[in-house]
């Protein structure tokens, strides 16, 4: 596999689907979104999806349909209830290989993470949420709202820049 281009990788924000004329107040909504590939255990079983980079989420979450596409069976014997918008939803874990590249199709980096697959998830446009454990522990992520871009660097970049506390 060819080596990926050096960090930082810069990703432009994505205009939310509910935005502009479709937004209740007409405003433009931008989201920090990257294309992420979830790789299943079998050859050719992978899926690339737009994923919301969510620093407020504790873990990596995905829709149940994604598990089917990559041939992964979430562990039904272990479930974690999550409170979302006042409602409780269950997620079931599965170990998945995640792949991030500076652009789809370019060489990227891969790592293993536990992904929580929802038992039900119907209406959200983003089928993957990239949270603290499984994503933010792999990279240094900088959000630039003014630039409408996010930067992803090696995980050590934070300590190199600010010093380990």
């Amino acid at each position, binding site marked *: 596999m060819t080596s990926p281009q050096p960090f930082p990788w810069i990703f432009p924000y994505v205009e939310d*689907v509910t935005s502009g004329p479709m937004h209740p107040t007409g405003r433009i909504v931008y989201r920090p979104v990257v294309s992420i590939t979830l790789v299943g255990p079998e050859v050719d079983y992978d899926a690339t999806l737009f994923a919301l980079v969510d620093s407020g989420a504790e873990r990596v979450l995905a829709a149940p349909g994604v598990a089917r596409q990559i041939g992964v069976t979430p562990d039904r014997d272990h479930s974690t209830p999550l409170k979302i918008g006042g409602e409780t939803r269950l997620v079931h874990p599965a170990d998945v290989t995640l792949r991030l590249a500076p652009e789809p199709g370019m060489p990227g980096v891969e790592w293993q993470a536990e992904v929580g697959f929802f038992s039900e998830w119907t209406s959200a446009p983003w089928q993957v949420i990239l949270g603290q454990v499984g994503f933010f522990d792999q990279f240094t992520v900088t959000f630039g709202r003014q630039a409408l871009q996010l930067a992803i660097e090696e995980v050590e970049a934070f300590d190199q820049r600010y010093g380990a506390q």
Partner: protein
Amino acid sequence: MEPLHLSELLRGFEGKWVAIKGGQVVAAAETPDALFKRLRSKRIHNASVLRAPTEQERRAELVGLG
């Protein structure tokens, strides 16, 4: 580096599962299973998938999941 303008791009695909590559819609289907099957059969690689909300779902701003 311009943001991807999804609201324009997904007009007409409300409620469908959509694959985007190079800033263009390259495939759409009613279900994720059908969409990924289509992508594989057409050998379309490196397209990114999302679900386009319905008109009704677009009336509320997304805060988180659900």
